[in-house]
């Protein structure tokens, strides 16, 4: 999608009437995310604890590699690491995923996609930053084209440091994520909703041409 695609355009209807199309208005939902009830609650209810348990034991990962760290995700599916036994699965669509692994450096082009994918995941959803690049930019800290701190743009639940971290470290990261979820701290989605304007401002600042709706449902 380019900027041209979201410009207003005119077309002629079947009756010969002129129709003006404003793609952002007409084709995208313009609602912004809202904070869930559970987020406001100090102490999670019993049922919410049960839900959190279920969520932590069934982590569906968006099978998406943004950078070189993606190479470390593959071994998790092999007999050696076999992440399945922890209830971890890979899904091909963000709609069915709960965990977004940002695997390494994130170029601006990829950031756009990552943001969209993240926003399309149903909440509660979690972000796992993999590798140093997501923490401070790593070896690309002064690149013209990569971001330095992922949590300026998306709420990160767990960072796994290293360049590159081994699969074991990644498994450890999952373990940590599970714990956080079970404790009710996996509230990235609500955080994102709460500080939506801040995140958006950051995103828009670094992505000079913002060619999508504010929130990609």
């Amino acid at each position: 999608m380019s900027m041209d695609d979201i410009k207003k355009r005119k077309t002629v209807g079947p009756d010969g009437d002129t129709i003006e199309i404003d793609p952002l208005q007409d084709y995208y939902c313009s609602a912004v995310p809202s904070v869930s009830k559970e987020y406001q609650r100090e102490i999670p209810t019993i049922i919410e604890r049960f839900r959190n348990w279920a969520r932590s034991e069934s982590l569906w990962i968006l099978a998406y590699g943004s950078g070189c760290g993606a190479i470390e995700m593959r071994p998790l599916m092999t007999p050696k690491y076999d992440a399945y036994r922890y209830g971890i699965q890979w899904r091909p669509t963000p709609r069915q995923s709960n965990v977004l692994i940002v695997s390494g450096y994130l170029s601006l082009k990829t950031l756009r996609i990552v943001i969209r994918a993240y926003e399309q995941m149903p909440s509660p959803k979690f972000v796992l930053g993999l590798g140093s690049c997501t923490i401070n930019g790593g070896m690309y800290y002064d690149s013209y084209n990569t971001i330095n701190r992922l949590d300026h743009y998306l709420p990160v639940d767990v960072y796994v440091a290293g360049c590159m971290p081994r699969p074991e470290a990644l498994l450890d990261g999952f373990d940590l994520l599970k714990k956080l979820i079970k404790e009710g701290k996996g509230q990235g989605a609500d955080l994102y909703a709460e500080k939506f304007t801040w995140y958006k401002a950051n995103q828009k600042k670094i992505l000079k041409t913002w060619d999508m709706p504010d929130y990609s449902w």
Partner: protein
Amino acid sequence: MVDQLFFNPIYIIGIGLAAAFFLGFFHRGTLAPRIIMVAVTAAFTIISLAWMQAFLLQGQTAEHGQAAAQVFTAGFQPPFSINLRMGAEEAFLTLLINISGLLGGIYLLDTLKKMGSHAVSVFIILIMGMNGIIMTRDIFNLFVFMEIVSIAVAGLIVLQKETNSLAAGFKYMIAAGIISVFLLLGIILAYAVGGSLNIDFLTAADLPGAKAGMIALFFLVIALLLELKPFPANGWALDVYDAAPAGVSAILAAAGSAAAYYALVKILPLGSSSHYTLVAAAGAVTFLGSNLLGLKQHRGRRLLGYSSVGQVGLLLIILGFSEVLGAQRDYIAAGIILSHSLAKAILFWLAGMLKQDGLEAWAALRKKPILLILFGSAVFALVGFPPFPSFFAKWELILLLNGGRFYLWSAVILGASFLEAVYLFRWFGYALKMDNEKLAEPEAPLFRLLPPIVFGILLYGAGWYMGSILEGFANFSYIPLAFILFLALIDRLPAWIKNTVSIAGVTFYIIDLYPRLEGDLLRLIFAGIFLIGAVLTLLSGYYYKGRRAGFYPLALTMFAGLAVLIEAANLLEFFYGWELMTIGSYFLLIRGKKSMPHGYSYMLFSVGGSFAMLFGFSLAAAGAGSIAMSALTGVTVLPMLAYSLMLVGFLTKTASVGLHIWLPGAHGEAVADIHFMASAILLKAGVFGLITVLLGMGAEASYTGPILFVLGWIGALSALLGNISASFQESAKRLLAWSSIGQLGYIVFGLATMSHLGWLIAISYSVTHFLYKGILFLVIGGIALKLGTPYMYKMGGLIKRMPFSFLAVLIAIITLSGVPPLVGFAAKWITYNLIISEGIYYQGFIVLISGIVAFLYLFRMIYTMFLGQLKDNLRTVREINIWFLIPVYLLLAAIMVLSFFPNMLLRPVGEMLSGYFPDGAIAWTGTLGTTRLGYYDGGAIMYVIGGIFVAALLFFFSLRKRTQQVKQFNIFYSGEAPSRPELSHFSYNFFAHYQKAIGVLTLPLVTNFWNWLSGILHGTADFFRRIYTGNGQTYAYHLVLYIVVVFFLQRGGM
């Protein structure tokens, strides 16, 4: 009684000549000669009319009977002087000639003005001469009159002085000269043998008895035959038709052929049966050859020439079969002559109004609708459609020929008629649909407009009269036709008024019809489909703003035809209704923009089918000795052929495989409500026909096995082909059209099983197909109308804009696909029962998998239209017209009721069918139906599934989720965002992979076959028409060769 003092036939000759001679006193440019001409031809007409009227009275009251009048010239008795006769035949023919003369003269007024008084006298003498040919009873006098006519014609050809006319005239004179030589030889030899020149005395003289007499007869007959332009020795005649002024050609075709025909009629009784055979054979060759060669002709006037020659060939056949046809010969000949003469005159007159002569140029007629109507009437009259005289004539002819076991001959007649229909309808199609912007408007001042209009009216009147005196048709009710006429008369009013009137008319008819059909469920069901369907379609007609010129008379014609089918008391009425319906539907189908080629193929298949049907009916009637509907039961004459042909006839309408190629295009291009009529209603006419025939045929006789076997396979393959092809269509309307082929395939399959369950399927399918296809056609058609395109890939996401349409379509496709719980499943369930109980596994298997394939196109249709991405330009479309939705929801309600209570339909139909097929009926307990094999409870299924659905829905609601309604681009698009809706709507070539795998099944083999056939015909035509080299000498050669060949053939045959 006719007053001989005032209406003496000799006056025609006397007045004519006196006037002609008198005109020598005038000079060109004055008005008087033309006034005299009109007065004289009018006087001729009055004299003939007086006689005609007297002879017509004879038919009704015996005591006022009028005997044929003899006029003796010179005051001596024949054979010593020349005598004229005025009998019924003469009165009829002279009337025809004189009216043609009167009107033709009026048409030629300005041409004649230019040419002066001499041309006027030539014209008068021409008409007088034709009268003379008809009336005279002396062979030499006949010769004289024929020469008068020839020379007058040769003179009138050059009213238009072009090289072509001159060349044509020269060729004509050469031919006429050669013919006159042989005619003279014949006359003088006949005189030498018979000792007289008087026809009646020569008849008594037994010419065939003498050796030289036979030769004399040969010369006489061959000369008169050549005068009738037998193929292939007729190149000169074609040139004349082509190059003469249109007004002259009109008279030649209308009056000249009739006169020449009657000359032969007079001479033939002199001869023996071998001469009749000769004439019939020559006629057959002419009829077939001429119409075949006409296929390649692309100029209007010349094509008319081919057609005229062909029609005369038909007359020759009729003449040749005088013995077989007996008393009905004159009726048949009159019917053909009337149609031919009136129609040909109209056509030639129309040709004269056009500036260009290419067939395509006839599109200019559209600029004056009255001319187009005349053209259409003429074309339909020539092909032999009701209500024109040729329809009745052809019916009687085929009936009697087949009654006399002359199957091959009637096949030739029908085949040649079909060829004629091929080019006539192609031509008519050009006129209806070709681009006419660059064409000049036809030149039609009043005096040129009047003659064709009068002839047009006469054509209809003659048709009505011919029908009313035909046995078996005398009690026919003309009220619906009168209603149609009324609608045609008020055609200038806005559509909604006409719509209301039509609905009122049909409703009244239903109320009127109901008591008559009570107790006959089969007919009642089809009457319901036809007429309630009519009301529903008309209801949707309210959407139309404006005049909708011509729609209502035609639609009502179709429905009237359907009503006649239901009510038909005998085969003739049935056939009449069938043809009426064909006309109406043809005109309805070609109302679409690009519908012409398809309307054309529809017409050809219809004509072919009705000819097959006609042949079959005539065989049936031949066996039974009557044309009552009961004749269809237990046909004794060639039963296998008869039933097969009848079935083929009806299968063309049900568009079964092999005969289906017209349907996708024709239906695919039709407008919404017409599409509904054409598919949901019209196709059922074919089903009704099949039912009628199959009921008569039964399943016991030995020949039924193969017929039913083939029929079953036709049905099964239609189902498969229709459904598979439907899956690959891009146009929603074509998709539905193919789907109709498939659905009708089920019905045909069901009927072919000749069992209780099979027929139950067929009838219940007829009803449910009417319901769900009605919905689909109206909705899809309405959408196509609204969006201006039938292509599904241009739609998408319409559910947001048209929720009511979506719901209707959803219900309809669930019904169509036979998924429980809706009523469509009942048919599937019965199909299984049928297949297993009747043991028809392989056909049944094909039918079943076709049912599965139906899912493909149904989903494709509903998805690509209603789901997916809404396009830019459709963002503001509204729901389809309320007048479409009203009938749609009425149909929907019917589906729902039947789904809850399938027994409401199936039980009474089953009980009715038990009368025909007692075995294997479904036993009903409430909504539960039980067969030997299984059971099905429509009501329970509805409740259970509804219950589960509601329960699941409640469960889902109980989860109480926050739901964010999003818009169409809020989809996962691999992390990107869609840029345009049309780029993210998967619709074109939807089942590409399917096509890759089994596309081989949809290769257009059938279309290729018909194209191949048509190519062969056209190629043959193109090859053989090269005999017409255009060289007068060649034509002379043809003439002499024809004589020599026929001579030796006949001698060899004797």
